[in-house]
């Protein structure tokens, strides 16, 4: 079952499941099994932005005036987000492209990953402006224990799926020994690994970014680090779209609108999927604790952040069919919403980038009535 970059068999993508069917050959979008993915591509591309468009030069002055505990909060969050986007900038491509079976989803995965690379480049843009040599910050990402703990949980499901897919594509189904360890490879196992991987990615996009977003916007509420906040708003808007795509995949499986075997697996592994989400919630709370260990910042403390994690987790879990596990039903940080509204996202003062803006969509039709009260 080796992968071919151009499958020569005649296949009908309308009859293929999202994953583990025949590999895609012609990238065509005239007929689509799940048209939602093309809508996501269009929306994502209309969101295009470049980090360099955002002026972050004032942030350097603001940063120097922050207290030591605030600097710790700011830099730690940037490190964590750099880790998240380093993983997301490559993993959907490496893990999912070899097994995807419909063209619109294949293109969505590439579009999604590409935008994560824009996010990664924006962190360098921010850090270059704050430090003459930002390498110490980047180097700490692979040393810092708190970040490492999270990195393991984030990458483990991807790595597992990638490894088993490689075994399957080179050796086929069977029991294979690698480095003295036996691995059972069959379609059911592969699909289970895919299901857990998508759940883990969903939890990542759903809540892992939000502690960090909350801190950024809390600085912005005090008119501090505003360049950074503009960038994070654009990132938050993109991440929302990525989240919707994993929610779509999980729901399509659950409602039996794709591969019927994935519906069975979704039921079978429901508890495990729940555990992945709950662990992410727990880790985010611990992260809030780590951020505020040297002192909190004005307008935000550990307790409020943890309440926000619970509030947002309720919302995200209901979206994929779980009951809301936490009591926190009201928004403890109401000011967050104004930064998450998509139409308020502004790149530069002179360029209001509204989400409905699309190149070439200007109404160029002029009717005679438009000139009705025009006199010479």
């Amino acid at each position, binding site marked *: 079952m080796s992968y071919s970059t151009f499958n020569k068999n005649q296949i009908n993508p309308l009859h293929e499941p999202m994953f583990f069917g025949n590999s895609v050959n012609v990238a065509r979008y005239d007929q689509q099994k799940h048209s*939602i993915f093309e*809508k*996501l591509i269009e*929306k994502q591309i209309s969101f295009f932005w470049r980090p360099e468009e955002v002026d972050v030069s004032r942030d350097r002055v603001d940063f120097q005036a922050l207290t030591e505990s605030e600097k710790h909060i700011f830099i730690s969050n940037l490190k964590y987000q750099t880790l998240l986007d380093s993983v997301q900038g490559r993993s959907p491509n490496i893990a999912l492209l070899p097994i995807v079976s419909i063209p619109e989803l294949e293109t969505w995965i590439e579009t999604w990953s590409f935008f994560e690379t824009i996010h990664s480049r924006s962190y360098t843009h921010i850090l270059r402006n704050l430090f003459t040599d930002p390498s110490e910050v980047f180097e700490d990402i692979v040393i810092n224990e708190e970040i490492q703990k999270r990195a393991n949980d984030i990458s483990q499901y991807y790595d597992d799926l990638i490894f088993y897919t490689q075994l399957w594509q080179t050796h086929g189904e069977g029991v294979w020994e690698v480095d003295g360890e036996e691995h059972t490879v069959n379609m059911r196992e592969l699909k289970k690994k895919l299901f857990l991987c998508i759940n883990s990615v969903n939890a990542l996009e759903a809540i892992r970014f939000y502690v960090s977003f909350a801190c950024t916007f809390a600085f912005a509420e005090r008119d501090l680090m505003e360049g950074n906040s503009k960038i994070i708003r654009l990132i938050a*808007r993109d991440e*929302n*779209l990525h*989240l*919707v795509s994993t*929610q*779509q995949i999980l*729901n*399509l499986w659950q*409602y039996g609108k794709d591969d019927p075997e994935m519906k069975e697996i979704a039921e079978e592994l429901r508890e495990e999927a729940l555990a992945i989400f709950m662990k992410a919630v727990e880790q985010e709370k611990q992260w809030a604790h780590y951020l505020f260990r040297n002192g909190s910042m004005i307008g935000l403390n550990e307790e409020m952040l943890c309440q926000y994690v619970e509030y947002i987790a309720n*919302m995200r879990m*209901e*979206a994929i*069919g779980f009951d809301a596990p936490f009591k926190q039903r*009201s*928004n403890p940080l*109401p000011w967050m*919403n104004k930064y*998450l*509204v*998509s*139409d308020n996202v502004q790149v530069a003062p002179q360029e209001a980038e509204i*989400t409905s803006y699309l190149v070439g969509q200007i109404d160029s039709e002029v009717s005679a009535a438009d000139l009705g009260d025009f006199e010479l």
Partner: protein
Amino acid sequence: MSQLYKVKVNGQHELTVDASQGTTLLEVMEQAGLEPHYHCRNGFCGACRVQLVSGEVDYVNDPLAFIRPGDCLACCCTAKTDLEINQ
């Protein structure tokens, strides 16, 4: 011509909405002083999801978030009949 519908929220608040104004359910709840959940207000994040107990809604733009059976996205829909929603 105004088209008035009743919207019952969480079984306690009874709101009246004029569908001909194109006011979304989210705005209706906000105008009544309730605090509905929202983020993007554009149909792609799903944060404004409410339970649609009875009635029908119209979508003003095509939502990208998955709408589970029995739910609706308040930020981008208007009332088509009398409604009962929970959030």
